[in-house]
């Protein structure tokens, strides 16, 4: 067990605030640079105002093997516009200049980080105001690559637990996790099937027996009603593909932002936020 305490204050404070309000947290995902850098920054800034508690920013990658069509296309739109890791960190820096409290989680795949250089990336990400990382293709078996260096550098490495992570494997998955645990509600890719919410609640209970960390649930959550259903048992609800679908619906024929782009996303976030807030949870003592 790694004893170094990661700098996860912003994440902890935010979950504490939600608990105090007697509700689950809303975690939103959008892709950096989609459909262009300035619009994605504008959306990012609008998310907390619309009710998001934690924001995930996607690091675009050409070959996102765990993502469905919506996020694949979002990544390709961003890359076509010249988005890269340096520019993504710049956007976070500009977000952080105006918002010192909302936790920012960078989510993506390992290769762009590996190529950037792990140590340099961790230093730059922390300086830009990133609080945590979710890297899909780094299971506990590869902890030496990024997870352990990230914890040392003071960034939370947020692990994905899945329906295939049984009780035997769960301790290994949780061992170096910090900030929160992300439970993937289905075996599958992002934006695909809607989960069986009863099974999800059982799985969240199981994980919570193994860890004091908050457990958030993502994959397949598309509406305020879904968000409310997940919020019954989980400490947080993650929504990504549905927001990207809402964004995509406003783009013109050349995939450029239009007057309604930012608002389409914030409108859905408001609905999701109402869903999350409709479920009263026992406030923390």
């Amino acid at each position, binding site marked *: 067990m790694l004893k170094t305490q990661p700098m996860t204050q912003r994440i902890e404070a935010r979950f504490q605030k939600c608990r105090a309000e007697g509700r689950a947290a809303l975690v939103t995902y959008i892709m950096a640079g989609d459909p262009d850098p300035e619009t994605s920054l504008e959306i990012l800034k609008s998310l907390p105002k619309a009710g998001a508690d934690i924001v995930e920013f996607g690091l675009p990658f050409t070959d996102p093997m765990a993502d469905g069509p919506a996020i694949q296309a979002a990544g390709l739109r961003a890359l076509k516009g010249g988005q890269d*890791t340096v520019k993504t960190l710049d956007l976070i820096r500009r977000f952080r200049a105006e918002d010192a409290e909302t936790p920012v989680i960078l989510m993506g795949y390992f*290769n762009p980080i590996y190529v950037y250089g792990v140590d340099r990336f961790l230093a730059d990400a922390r300086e830009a105001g990133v609080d945590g990382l979710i890297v899909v293709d780094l299971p506990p078996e590869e902890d030496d690559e990024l997870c352990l260096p990230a914890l040392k550098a003071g960034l939370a490495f947020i692990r994905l637990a899945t329906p295939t992570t049984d009780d035997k494997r769960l301790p290994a998955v949780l061992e170096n996790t910090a900030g929160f645990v992300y439970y993937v509600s289905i075996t599958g890719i992002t934006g695909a099937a809607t989960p069986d919410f009863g099974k999800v609640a059982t799985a969240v209970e199981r994980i919570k027996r193994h860890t004091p960390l908050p457990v958030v649930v993502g994959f397949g959550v598309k509406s305020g009603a879904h968000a409310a259903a997940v919020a019954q048992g989980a400490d947080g609800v993650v929504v990504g593909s549905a927001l990207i679908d809402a964004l995509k619906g406003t783009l013109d024929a050349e995939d450029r932002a239009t007057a309604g782009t930012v608002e389409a996303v914030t409108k859905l976030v408001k609905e999701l936020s109402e869903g999350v807030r409709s479920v009263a949870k026992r406030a923390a003592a």
Partner: protein
Amino acid sequence: MSAQAQPNSFRTGPDERGHFGPFGGRFVAETLMPNILELEKAYEEARNDPAFHAEMAYFSTHYIGRPSPLYFAERMTEHLGGAKIYFKREELNHTGAHKVNNVLGQILLARRMGKKRIIAETGAGQHGVATATLCARFGLECIVYMGAVDVERQKPNVFRMNMLGAKVVPVQSGTRTLKDAMNEALRDWVTNVADTFYCIGTVAGPHPYPAMVRDFQCVIGNETREQMLEAEGRLPDSLVACIGGGSNAIGLFHPFLDDKSVEIYGVEAAGHGLHSLHAASLTGGRPGVLHGNRTYLLMNRDGQIADAHSISAGLDYPGIGPEHAWLHEMGRVTYISATDQEALDAFQLCSRLEGILPALEPSHALAKVIEIAPKKPKDHLMVVNISGRGDKDLFQIAEHLGSQIV
């Protein structure tokens, strides 16, 4: 390259975490990890079970038609005027390429594991055809992911797969070639993890695939060794094979890696040339992480994977097996490349001189034989792996040569 310490043996890898030096590993989503560990255990049990080897041997002989001949290419040898050239004739295998050696192993393993649904990715279609063939033979459901671009340029193989009862899914995402087919197969696996066996076609992917596929392909090198000892009373002096992911090459090379006298050449696809569009990951790429392993990749400054190009769909992949990346860094194997044009020229020469139509993939290896053999003495024994037959490529070759097949 020789700056690194040389190991006592080049044949002991990978380590228990699937590493060949710094390459390899298990870079996959958590959902797949339990499956990958299950597969590793099942393969370990199978390779220690004489019954599994007996079953492999039976189907190798009676279904694939092994051993494949080691054939003295007399007219090619005369024409080039140097080394004595032998062809390892993997193109004579059932389904027309070396791919079937690996698929047989994996399908027998899937049966042992009780998996009824088989998925595969394919580029040229040879791996897809081999997988569809063995699924038909054993009554298993078969889904083959194939880039939409490759579906278009390898139509005969798509039809063959359909005739064998497989479902071919054209992949429209990304660059619509082999790497995207592999992404889509991984997405399927993550979704249908409980009942599905992913039959990977080359020595890439997460551990244990690179080692397992290599073991199934080593029959090529093991036979070559025996056949050459019988024909010439000694080991060959050099080996040449083409490399996309690198399974036919590692199958020929691996049994000879510790025989210091044997020169080994791997030939990557240089496409339009190394300063233009190509698929030569070792010559033109650098280390990165994709599809479950660390290896040499073609990519931009930001780590975004580049479009590979080769006239041969089977070599059109921006990565290479991790063991090759390691052998490259250790300097044990010399990696060189051949352009589209060189491969086309070699295809024609081999067809005219030997009456053998090689696939475009081994035509790349032949292109370098044409270059290297004349510089070697007449008693130099050179083996080139003819990894597949050219029938599948005839439409494409005709187009390049400006003729029309009616």
